[in-house]
Structures are given as C-alpha cells and as structure tokens.
C-alpha cells in the first residue's frame, strides 16, 4: 500500500463536505471566543448557513455529474457521482429539518439538552447551571461534525475513508445521545451503550477491512471489485472480510441481529437528536451499504445473497413483531425504524438500477416522516401538578412517551395529531402518502430483481405494521383524553395487546441507576424494557399530557415534513425522475 500525493485536489467536488466540516470547526471556535449571550444565535446562523450551503453545493455539482457521471477525488478516496449527490442532498435537507427541531426551545424556553452535560445528574452543580439558564451550544458543531461524516460516508471510494467517515459521524452522535436535559441517566446509559456497541461494530468493520486487504492487496473499491471478479483459492478470506464489513454497516442501519442498540438509544437520546440520528444516519449508512454492495462485492453476490436475505427477513419480522408490543412511542418508532431498514434492504438485495433509485427515494421519504414524527413527540409533554394552589398551571416535564398518554390528543390538539397521523400513515405505507410510493418502488424493484419472496414478506410485514401505527391514530382520535375519567380505559386500550409488564426485570440495569426524583422528572423511572410499562402504575396521577407550543422552528419543521410527505405521495414523479437520472454509480 502506498500513499501518493494526488496531482490536484478537486476542491469544488468536495464542497458540500468541506462547507459543513469547516462550519463545524468554526462552531468550535465560536464556543471559545463568542460571548455566551450571542453564542446560540451565532451557532444557529452558522449551522443553517452551512447546511444550506451544502445543498447549494450539491445543486451546483448536479448537472455536471449528471452529464459526465461524476469524478474521483483525492486520488480515489472519495467519489462524487449521482447516488453520492442524491444522498448528500437528502442528508443536508434532513439535517436542516432536524436542526429546526434541535433549535426549538419551545414555550418553556428550555431546549432538549442538559445545561451542563458534564455535571453529575442530580448534583447541586447541575441545579445551579439550570437556574442560571446555561445552554450547551456545542450541540450545533457536534451536529455539523456528524453531518459532515454522513456526507462523506456514502461518497467514500476506499475502505479506509469509509472507516474514518464512520467514526467522524459516530463519535458526535455518541456524545449527543448522552446530553438529554431530562431523564439524564437514561440518556447517559444510552450513550454508553451506543458507544460500546458502536465500538464493537467498528472493530468488526476494521477486522473485515483487514481481511479484505489481505485478500485483495488494496483498499480501493474499484480495485477490490476487479480482484473479486477473478477469484483465487483464498476467497474464504475475502468472503469473511466482506461479511464483517457488511456487518459493520448493518449495525449502523440497525438491521437484525445488529439492531439491539436501536431502541435503547432512540429512547434515551434527546428527542430532536433521535430524529436527526434516525433520519440522517440511516441515509448515510444505507448509502455506504448500497455503494459497497453494488460496486465492491457484486462478484460475491451469490455467496452474500443468503446473508442479505436472512438479514432482510429477520429485520422486517423482528422489527414489526416487537413493535407490536411496545408501549413507548419512541421505542415503537425505533422498532419501526428497524422494520423500515428491512424494507430498504429488499431494495438493496434487488441489485438492479431500479433498486438503487428506489432505495434513494425511500430513504428521503422515510427521513422526512421520521424527523417530523420526532418533532411532534418533542412537543407532547407531561405536566405535573395543575391542581395545586401554589402551582395552578403545573410545570412541564419531559416528553409524554407512553402511548396511553397520547389518548385524546386528536381532540385537544387536532393539528398536531393530524400531522403525526400523516407521518404514521406514511410509515405504514398508506396510498397518497410518500411512504406508499417508497414501499411500492422498493418492493417492485425487489420483484424485478427476482427477490419476490422478500417483497412478499415485506408486504405482509407492512400489513402487520399498520396495526401499531393505526393503534396510535385510534388512540389519539377515538379515545377520551388522558386524565379524564376514562383514563384507565385509555391505558387499558393502549396496553390491550401488550403482555404483562414482564417478570420483574432488574430495575438497575447495566449502568442504569434509578433517577432518584431529584431532577424534575420526579418519580419517572424508565428502565430500558418492560419497566416502562410498569411506569404507568407508579406515575403520579396528577401528571397530565400537554402540548407545549413550539418556539417556531419545530412548527416549521413539522409543516415542511408534512407537506413533503403529502407532495411526495401525490406527485412523486418529478422527484422519482430526478433520482432515477442520478442512480448510476461511478465504478
């Protein structure tokens, strides 16, 4: 292996990445030099400017790339071709939408992040920071770093860059996961889990890279592909290496059996970050997976198909089936995201041009609905008191994530509930929403590619998945609001199909220590699994569900996501054409 100085650097082709990463570095400097009062506004300006700049850069590269198929830059470390640009554009758009939610402090004036993330939960120091109204504006550079890594990830052209990009996007996410303002222990536990498992997955990836390098003698995608087409006696080495590389990527997309982190992390992370992570990480990781499966290892298709089929089927089935018994909205969406990963995998397995464009479209529409859905969850809160004389309005707590708390939301907040319904319908793949077009294109690509059993299972899983989406819709619109006389009935309806809260699982799990009610979350104990259901019983009856008005940003994000979900569902053709034009990899 030799590193050579590239003759010239195609700065322009890398501009989306450079703009975002550059802005992130500037953001770090802002933290150091700009006074605290002006930091938030400065960071917001930089973040939005950077992401919009990235979109502009993608647009500028668009027509040239469509004409000549794209270019290799940095001596073959990165590739700027059609799929890369589509993915980068999607990531940039979704990042903007996510940033809108992240930036929203709601009417309470508090954002989603701990005032001082480094303080010990429940300590006096934390309380002091809260009272002083400190804010962790480092969030924005972190998001930009992650977004930069995501922009690189699907555009990598060698395995080393792939690994670097993976780390660049993952490390900020580990941090962001642990920064929730409320339920901090849950958040920190999720962060640590994410980090440990992510490190494990990275190790798998690096091990795989090593094995592939041992076989091929190169890290460059194109050269590996050329070697795999001409197998020698050592192809077990190559095969194991390829499986490990794919496993590393499947971890990021949350495919079974590498999905275990997803529910805990989605639940623990600050809700706006969950939306960002769920939407953008998935786009980036699937982009990389798509590129590797289509350009690096197509020669191994017959050997790897069995793995991908197994993973796709397992992912669809497990994601759907376990989502059926969830009672926490965030966990439910986590399992739903696992199921969606399975649906997208069917498009990847198709291994035809339609597969590429359908996956690209699916990622976009799934991302839009996901950001919107988590934005809605961010606004639906618990409120204590209310009946106390000294505290007539009560105080707003964290997100009301138990689905029984969503009962009657359609009556009290019809607009918000309607938007959420729209996102759920899109997830379920109901016609006239973008999700339907996405599912339809992916499954038809799978059928064209001969993977009709996968498409069949996908359709069946979608049908089953519709149950838990519609259950929430029914709860929101056809059940009396939580806290009214039939609260018990609502809770019963929500728990109708969920089993008993399980045999007493350890309340203290992993690093989990019960939040001792010091933080405003009160008696809110959220153990990773099952314990949440128990929570219904211990939650103080005085807790009611409320919707905090958005500061404006999140509302804009929800409206944009809803509009996109409808538009892409009703008039998908322009976007489909746009993507189909760009769906050719530069090999």
């Amino acid at each position, binding site marked *: 292996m030799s590193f050579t100085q590239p003759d010239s650097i195609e700065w322009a082709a890398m501009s989306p990445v450079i703009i975002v990463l550059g802005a992130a570095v500037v953001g770090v400097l802002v933290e150091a030099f700009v006074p605290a009062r002006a930091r938030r506004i400065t960071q917001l300006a930089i973040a939005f400017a950077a992401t919009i700049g990235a979109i502009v850069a993608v647009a500028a590269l668009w027509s040239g790339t469509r004409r000549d198929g794209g270019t290799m830059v940095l001596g073959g470390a990165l590739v700027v071709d059609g799929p890369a640009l589509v993915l980068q554009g999607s990531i940039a758009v979704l990042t903007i939408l996510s940033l809108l939610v992240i930036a929203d402090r709601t009417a309470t004036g508090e954002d989603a992040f701990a005032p001082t993330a480094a303080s010990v939960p429940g300590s006096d120091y934390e309380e002091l920071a809260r009272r002083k109204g400190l804010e962790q504006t480092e969030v924005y550079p972190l998001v930009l770093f992650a977004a930069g890594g995501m922009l690189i990830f699907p555009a990598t052209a060698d395995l080393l860059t792939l690994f670097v990009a993976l780390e660049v996007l993952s490390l900020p996410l580990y941090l962001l996961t642990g920064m929730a303002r409320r339920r901090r222990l849950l958040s920190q536990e999720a962060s640590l889990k994410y980090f440990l498992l992510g490190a494990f997955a990275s190790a798998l990836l690096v091990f795989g890279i090593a094995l592939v390098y041992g076989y091929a003698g190169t890290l460059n995608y194109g050269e590996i592909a050329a070697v795999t087409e001409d197998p020698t006696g050592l192809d077990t080495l190559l095969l194991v290496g390829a499986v490990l590389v794919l496993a590393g990527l499947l971890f990021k997309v949350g495919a079974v059996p590498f999905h275990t982190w997803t529910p805990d992390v989605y639940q623990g992370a600050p809700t706006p970050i969950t939306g960002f992570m769920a939407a953008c990480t998935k786009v980036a990781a699937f982009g990389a997976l798509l590129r590797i499966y289509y350009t690096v290892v197509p020669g191994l298709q017959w050997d790897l198909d069995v793995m991908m089929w197994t993973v796709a089927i397992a992912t669809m089935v*497990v994601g759907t*089936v376990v989502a059926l018994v969830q009672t926490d909205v965030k966990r439910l969406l986590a399992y739903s995201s696992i199921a969606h990963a399975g649906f997208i995998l069917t498009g990847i397995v198709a291994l035809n041009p339609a597969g590429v464009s359908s996956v690209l479209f699916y990622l976009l529409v799934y991302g839009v609905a996901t950001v919107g859905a988590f934005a809605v969850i961010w606004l639906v809160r618990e409120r204590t008191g209310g009946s106390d004389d000294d505290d007539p309005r009560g105080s707003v707590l964290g997100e009301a994530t138990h689905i029984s708390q969503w009962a009657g939301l359609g009556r009290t907040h019809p607009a918000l509930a309607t938007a959420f319904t729209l996102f759920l319908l899109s997830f379920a793949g109901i016609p006239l929403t973008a999700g339907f077009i996405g599912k339809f294109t992916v499954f038809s690509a799978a059928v064209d590619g001969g993977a009709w059993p996968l498409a069949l299972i996908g359709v069946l899983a979608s049908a089953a998945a519709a149950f838990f989406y519609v259950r929430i819709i029914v709860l929101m619109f056809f059940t009396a609001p939580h806290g009214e006389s039939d609260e018990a009935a609502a809770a019963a309806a929500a728990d109708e199909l969920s*089993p008993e809260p399980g045999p007493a699982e350890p309340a203290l799990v*992993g690093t989990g220590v019960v939040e001792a009610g010091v933080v405003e979350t009160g008696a809110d104990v959220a153990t990773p699994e099952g314990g949440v259901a128990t929570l219904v019983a211990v939650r103080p009856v005085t807790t009611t569900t409320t919707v905090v008005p958005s500061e404006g940003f999140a509302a804009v994000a929800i409206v944009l996501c809803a509009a996109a979900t409808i538009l892409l569902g009703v008039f998908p053709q322009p976007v489909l054409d746009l993507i189909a034009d760009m769906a050719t990899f530069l090999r």
Partner: protein
Amino acid sequence: MHTLTALAASLPADTLAPATETVQAGIFLVTPLLVGLPLASAAVLLLLGRRADRWGHWLGVLASSAAFVFGVVAFLRLVERPSDQRTLLVPIGTWIDAGSFHVDAGIRLDPLSLTFVLLVTFVGSLIHVYSVAYMDHDRDRRRFFAYLNLFVAAMLLLVLADSYLLLFVGWEGVGLASYLLIGFWNHHTPYAVAAKKAFVANRVGDVGLIVAMGLMFAHFGGLDFETVLGGAADPALAGVSEGTMTAIGLMLLLAACGKSAQFPLQSWLGDAMAGPTPVSALIHAATMVTAGVYLIVRSGAVFEAAPDAQLVVVIVGAITLLFGAIVGCAKDDIKKALAASTMSQIGYMVLAAGLGPVGYAFAIFHLVTHGFFKAGMFLGAGSVMHGMDDQVDMRRFGGLARYMKVTWLTFMMGWLAILGIPPFSGFFSKDKIIEAAFIPTDGQEWRAWVFGGVALLGAGVTAFYMSRLFFMTFEGDRRWSARKDGSEQHPHESPALMTWPMIILAVGSVGLGLVLATGSRFVDWLSPVTGHAEHGEPVLPAGVLMGLTLGLVVVGLVLAWRRYAVSTVPVVPPVGTALTRAARVDLYQDAVNDALLVEPGEHLTRSLVFADRTVVDGAVTGVARVTVGLGSLFRRAQTGYVRTYAATMLAGLVVLLVVVLAVQS
C-alpha cells in the same frame, strides 16, 4: 282473423328494417323534458318540504299534465312522418367512457316508446287529479305527489331510453318509487314489510337484467338498442351462439318476471296493495308492472334468435295467467282480487309477447286497454273504500249500486271490458291474443292447443272472478259493517275530482279498443317496431274461437251471478274446498318461497356468520396472538444489558458467517 291477414298484408318488405334517424335539431330535441319536468317537480317537492304543502299537489298535477302535452305534440309530429321514418334518436351526451366501454345517453322515440309515453302520462295525469281528492286528509300529500312524479319521470326514462343501461336507470327508478309508495304509510309495520318484500323480489329480477347486460356487452360490444338488437337480428353474423342468445333471453325474462310479477316472482304484487289505492291503480296495474312486457317486446330480436327462451316466456305467461285467475277467485279483499286479476292479465300479455312478432302488437294493445280499464276499476275500488270508511272486505259490501251511481257505472264499464264483451275495449285486445295463441308455432300444433287452451280457459275464469267481485260489491244484499268509530255506514259518492278521472277512464274502457282496432290502426302504428308477422292460421277457425270465448265468459258470468248476486253471500268466509283454501293464501307461494329460499338462506347466513366468527376471526386473532407472543419473546431478549446486546450481535454474526460459508462450499 281478418286482422291478422290485414296485418301481414299491411307490412311491405321494406319496413322490416325501419331507418333510424338521429335528431340534430327541431321540436324533438325537447323530448328529454318529458323526463325532466316530473323529475324537477319531484325534486322541488322533496326539497321544499312542508313549505310546499299548500300547493305541492297541484305542481305535481301540472308536471304530469305538461309531460302529457309534450307527449301529444311528439305524437302528432311523429304521425306526420312516413311509417318507416318514425324511429328517432335524440342524443343527450356521452354518459360513460371508460376504455372500451362507451355508453351514450339518449332518447329513443319510436311508436312503441311513444305509446307508453301517452299511456303513462295520460293515465298518470288522471290519477294525479284523483289523488288530490283521495289523499286530501293525508298530512303527507305533498310527499305522495313527489313520489308520484318521481315514478312518472322514472317510467318515462325507462321507456324512452335508447340503451339497456339507461333503461336500467329508469327500471331502478320505478322500483324505488314503487317501494316508497307501497310503504307510504310505513308507520304501519305490515305495509313497510310489504314494501320491503316488493323491493327484494324486484332485486332478484334486476340481477337478471344486469347479467343480461353483461352478456350483451361481452358479445355485442355495446348496450344501446341499435347495437344489441341489430346484432341479435343476425346472431351468426355477430358470431354469437344460440345458447348465448337463450341465456340473454332468459335473463331478460327473469327481469321481466320481477318487475311484472310473473311466476315465479309474483308474490310481491298482492302485498303491494298496501300502498294508497291511486298507487295501485297507476303503478301496480296500469304502468310499472307492464314494464316487463315492454322489455320483452323491445328485445324482440333477442327472443326471436332464441326460440327456447321464447317458449319459456310463453310458459311463464300461461302459468301466471292461470295462477292469477285462480287466486282471484278466492280473494275477499277487493284490492287483492284486482291485483290477482292484474297478474293474470299481464300473464296474457307475456304469453302474447312470447308468441313472437305475431303477438307483440296484441300484447301492447292489451297492455293499453288494460291500462285503462284496470286503472278505472282500481279507482272505482278506491272510491268504494272512500265511501265505506276504508273497508276492503267484499263480504262487507253489497248493494252499493244504489248509493254510488257513478262509481257503479264506471266500474261496470271496466268489468265488461275485462270480460271481453263486444264492443268493449278488452274484447278487441284479449280476443286477438287468444286467437294468436291458437296459431301453431314452427308447425307444432301441441303448442297451439296447450297455450290456446290455457288462454281460453283463463278467459272463462276471469269472467267468473271479475263478476264475483262486481256482484259482491255492487249487487245483492247490504252486508255492511259498522264504521271504525262504531257508527253506521253511510256510503256516499266521491267528489268530482275523483269521479271525473273514473268517467274518462270508463270512456276509454268502452271505446278505445274499437277506435284502435278499426282498420288495424294500432297494429300498423306499432309495425315499425314489432316487425313483420308471419302468416299463420289458428288450429280452429277464428269465428269458432270467438264463439267459444264468449260462451265461456257467459258461463263464468252466470255462475257468479247465481252464487253472489241471487243467493246470499256469507259474511264469514266458508271453509271452502282445498283449492279455495289454497287460492286464499296465493296457492302457498309464500310458504314455498319460505321453504325454498328464506329458510335455506337463513341457515346459510347463520352458518356463514358462525364460520366467520370461528374460522376467519379465529385465524385473525390467532395470528395476532402468535405475533404478540413472538414479540414478547423477542422483547425478552432486549434485557438492557450491553453484554447481552453484544453477545446477540456476535452470535448473529457467527450464524451469518456459518451460513455464508456453508452455502459457499
């Protein structure tokens, strides 16, 4: 007989395929208003609600009369034309254009449809006028007129449609109006049930029409009369087998049976008498129930290409005509007796329509004269009920001739007409049907004897039961019951608004037959539609047949006179013979329907519900339970321990590696 030969002679060969003309301009373009006016009136009456209560009935009368005036104008303009140019198409617009399925909506004006237009609007208008007085005390009179107008509009659409599909719209429209009017007093449960029964029985027939349309579209590629009947005129050319034509014909017959209360779908008509009497006169005697005859005559080309279907038509007509006549002998309810008579008379028409071109014109002729005399008699029955405190049991009438002179005389005209006494109108129409029935078809003399015999026998039985009805009501002793409030009956003549329509219809009962039969005017008028009649000779000379018919009629009349006018009629019905008891319950038709259809149907639905609960629901809930169980099982794996998660990933990876390597080697 001379009429038949005259008919054959009057049909030059070139009238076989009368030219149709599409109207682009002129007076005929307003013909859609025939349908539109009553429809608009119905809409106004229904939408305005109680605000239209004071004048609504007059609007209804006006709409119906205006349609009649339009009809007369159209008739006069059509008569001006040569007889082979009397088929006009008035396009309304494209109705359905879906792929290869294209239907234009349009009006078809020809002698047949115009005959119906005149009958429906004339009799309809008279009955509208009659109803103004008859429904005077009903607080929902406006709604009644809205429904009547709706009926007139739908009936006109039915006969004016230029395609089976548009005909079907009118077909369903009259069914709806009939349902609404039978159940007009639906607060009385039996009436509501009767309406439902009529509706359901009609649906069975509708299925036949739908299937027939499906077959037509599949084989002829269209649903308009031009395409279908043109194709049916030469099925071999259109590549359609005789089996298909038979199927279409039988399906059309099923439709006709439902609408015209023919065997085996006849059970609803008796119960339909629950509606107000003007409804019985207009819908269930004069017009709607004859729609089946219209359908068969209109589809003549189809039946001629399917002799088997034609034979079934004749059989159905023969069975029904006897069935109705027998039931009519035993009924004590004046309206139900008249309903049985209607059924029987329509049986005559269907029988005639099944005889082919030789019978078409007479079927329609009888339809028209029957429309007059039967409507007149129903109005007479209504007048009697009006004067007798809504009593319908003929055993509680008797001797009314002295108290209701106009009703008595007009009813007598109708009675003599239905008996077929010359020169009343029924003589000219019914006698021709009997004569035609005695002409052998395809040289098969047995058919002539069987069907001719049935028709002849029917005439005798008709004379008996109609005379029975007439004598029990107007002659003999007074057997009046007390009024509902306990006071004595004071029969009285009805107001002028009711008597005048009866008088006009009675005039028609007397003279219409003679007028139309003279010089075979009516037959000539219809000939562009009914086509060429093959020359045939009855198995018995026409004079002998006429004599036999009249003889049987006189026998029936005398029998009835001796039993119901001379001797005392018991107030409580005697037990009677087995046949009488059977006829009183409509020859067990309801019991048969219940045993054959209702009970098996109920068993079927019950077992289907059971299967749905156990098998289908069981499968669904079973799958749900298994899924949830599976979900809980997987959920157990989600312990919250990182070490478990990592182990899961590692185990999964190992499995995948093993699988991949196993497949590879």
